[in-house]
């Protein structure tokens, strides 16, 4: 297949400019820098290493500009949105976000975009790192079972979004067709200890958040910007539990943060950390000591911070309902020595009742949707539903494997306290608990608020907890929950 190459006038003009200025010593001028980039000669050919999230390819280091061969395949495929819910993703390279591309200024990228024969639709790619019409979209429009090749030279360093720009553009992006391409300056970005790839996206499904089964894309919700899911790396939980990103105390972490949209702007924040350095919008401007940085839809940012204390640090879109209700939540787990000077942990805790009221309770939800009453469900069904409830309601404190958080929230896994008395456990979920308790030989002095979930849901989630992680396999019924609720 032949690729039409548009005559590129700009490099020649800039080259001429370069020549006339070649005797002047100063090269701080912006135009000259640009000329520089267009003028950088490439030596060898090299096949680009692509990485799927949350990983990034190896830094460019000191390598010279090269002819960089990038091959990317488009796949339309079903994947998991959250436990029990699947979605037909359209992807660059089989992941959402698409494969991370790492280049340096002056690279001549030969980009081949292949559209898998099983796919139904034509696609293309618009790379924001490309200087040229459509960012490559015009040259890469490709039918299923075909491929297109085009070339571009990276002129401006920075972190850029790429995405599909085929009609209807919004739908292609909403289905996951976006990713990041990094253009490093000559000599590379400063070396850090850990680098990760995090990209936010909003999804619009026929059903509501959490509705099970294969969920279709909902155009009207997308037009209304009424997202059901707002997630990092394409699905709920892509960066939590076992999928959490990790670092050790004392290391510097760099996150390449992108936002595919299609609609929402991200207020990116890491709970418990301050960004030492933010390359604002992925460009040259460096801001220091930042709490939350805006990542526009179709934009990016690079954030860096040194992790000083161990623990789990939560990545969120600080438009906070998105984090806790729609999935925009990730985790960075840091291991190493505590440093009490920087962070003491809980020193003392009590209950504060200005008006003697309860904390964080919601009115009893009489209208709670009870799809299937707990009593009619099999153990397997209760386990499944219980797991979903657990991941929404309990997981933040008690953690994915019921391990809790040392010194703060007691474990549910192999918990002597839990297994000793099922009615006591039900009561705690119903009414909350404060004060010192001993679990598996360790003292905890913390507060659990009462949980505003239905008795059916309590039965399911407790059955899940009791039948997981080495607990005593009690099958908690709604009747038991009702009894505890009414009995006191």
């Amino acid at each position: 297949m032949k690729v039409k190459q548009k005559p590129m006038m700009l490099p020649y003009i800039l080259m001429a400019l370069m020549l006339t200025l070649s005797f002047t010593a100063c090269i701080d001028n912006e135009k000259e820098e640009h000329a520089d980039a267009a003028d950088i000669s490439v030596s060898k050919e090299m096949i680009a290493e692509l990485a799927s999230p949350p990983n990034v390819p190896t830094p460019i280091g000191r390598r010279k500009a090269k002819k960089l061969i990038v091959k990317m395949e488009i796949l339309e495929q079903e994947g998991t949105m959250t436990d029990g819910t699947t979605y037909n993703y359209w992807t660059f390279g089989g992941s959402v976000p698409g494969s991370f591309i790492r280049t340096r200024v002056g690279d001549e990228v030969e980009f081949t975009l292949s559209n898998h024969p099983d796919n139904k639709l034509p696609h293309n790619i618009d790379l924001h790192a490309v200087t040229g019409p459509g960012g490559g979209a015009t040259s890469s429009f490709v039918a299923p079972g075909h491929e297109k090749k085009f070339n571009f030279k990276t002129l401006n360093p920075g972190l850029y979004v790429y995405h599909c720009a085929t009609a209807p553009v919004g739908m292609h992006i909403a289905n996951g067709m976006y990713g990041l391409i990094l253009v490093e300056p000559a000599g590379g970005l400063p070396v850090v200890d850990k680098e990760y790839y995090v990209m936010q996206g909003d999804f619009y499904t026929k059903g509501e958040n959490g509705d099970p089964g294969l969920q279709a894309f909902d155009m009207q919700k997308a037009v209304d910007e009424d997202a059901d899911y707002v997630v990092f790396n394409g699905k709920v939980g892509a960066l939590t539990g076992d999928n959490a990103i990790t670092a050790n105390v004392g290391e510097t972490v760099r996150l390449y943060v992108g936002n595919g949209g299609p609609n929402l702007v991200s207020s990116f924040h890491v709970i418990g950390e301050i960004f030492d350095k933010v390359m604002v919008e992925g460009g040259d401007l460096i801001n220091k000591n930042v709490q939350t940085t805006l990542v526009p839809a179709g934009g990016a940012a690079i954030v860096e911070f040194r992790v000083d204390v161990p623990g789990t640090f939560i990545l969120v879109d600080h438009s906070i309902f998105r984090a806790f209700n729609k999935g925009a939540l990730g985790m960075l787990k840091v291991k190493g020595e505590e440093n009490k000077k920087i962070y003491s942990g809980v020193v003392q805790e009590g209950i504060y009742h200005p008006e003697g009221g309860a904390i964080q309770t919601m009115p009893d939800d009489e209208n709670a949707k009870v799809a299937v009453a707990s009593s009619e469900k099999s153990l397997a069904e209760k386990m499944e539903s219980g797991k979903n409830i657990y991941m929404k309601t309990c997981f933040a404190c008690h953690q994915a494997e019921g391990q809790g958080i040392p010194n703060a929230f007691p474990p549910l896994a192999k918990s002597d306290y839990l297994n000793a008395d099922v009615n006591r456990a039900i009561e705690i979920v119903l009414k909350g608990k404060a004060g010192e308790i001993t679990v598996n030989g360790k003292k905890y002095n913390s507060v659990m608020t009462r949980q505003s979930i239905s008795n059916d849901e309590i039965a399911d989630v407790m059955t899940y907890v009791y039948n997981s992680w080495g607990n005593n396999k009690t099958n908690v019924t709604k009747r038991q929950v009702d009894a505890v609720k009414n009995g006191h």
Partner: protein
Amino acid sequence: MRTILRLATRILFISYLSTTYCQSKMVPIKGGTYTPLYGRDSLQVTISDFEIDVYPVTNSEYLEFVKKYPKWQRSQVKKIFADGNYLREWTSDTQLGKLKSLNAPITNISWFAASDYCECQGKRLATIDEWEYVAMANKTMPDARTLEDYNKYILSWYEKPKTFNNPIGSTFKNYWGVYDLHGLVWEWTLDFNSVLVSGESRKDVDNDSNLFCGSAAIGATDLMNYAAFMRYATRGSLKAKYAMKNLGFRCVKDIIK
């Protein structure tokens, strides 16, 4: 209404008598005037009466065709008339792929092949305007384009994988008695590349304001646009020698009075 029906049955009967046994079933389409969603200009187009295949051409019908016309066998075909994907999954020149069912629509054929097939039957491919005219019907209405259901059905098909191996007739029968215009495979049209979609859809938006002039009314109009956009985008990505796994065809015939 009744007279149209009566006329239709009569034509059907005549065409049944006049066609040879190997020709697929056709139904008459009463011509008319309509505004295509996205065309060369915003003018209405007028369609003359014509007949259209009830179903897309099947694997087994195409198999007979290549047996009769060896120049369309995979090893014989001229490369300028069909690219490397032509009949790609067939095990030999005259044998379908193992996973292909006889009754599924033929796909992985080029425009040249489809066009020649129709010609050999004394037919031709439908024009975009003709195809869209028939395809804007749902089960009960000749033009259902503003109905939410109609558009949702089309949009949901875009998300269903591997429908190309479903048997013909597995989708709905429309107002005209035609099956599978939506929900099975894309179909070649005679002038598939006459509506220019440059591949840079956002640029197209600027150039072709017709595309958006009605879109101030949000809702069904938007859905309608989206359902049709994808079809036009797909056509725009094609070249006549391309063969695609999700692209088949059917034939039409002018009614000579």
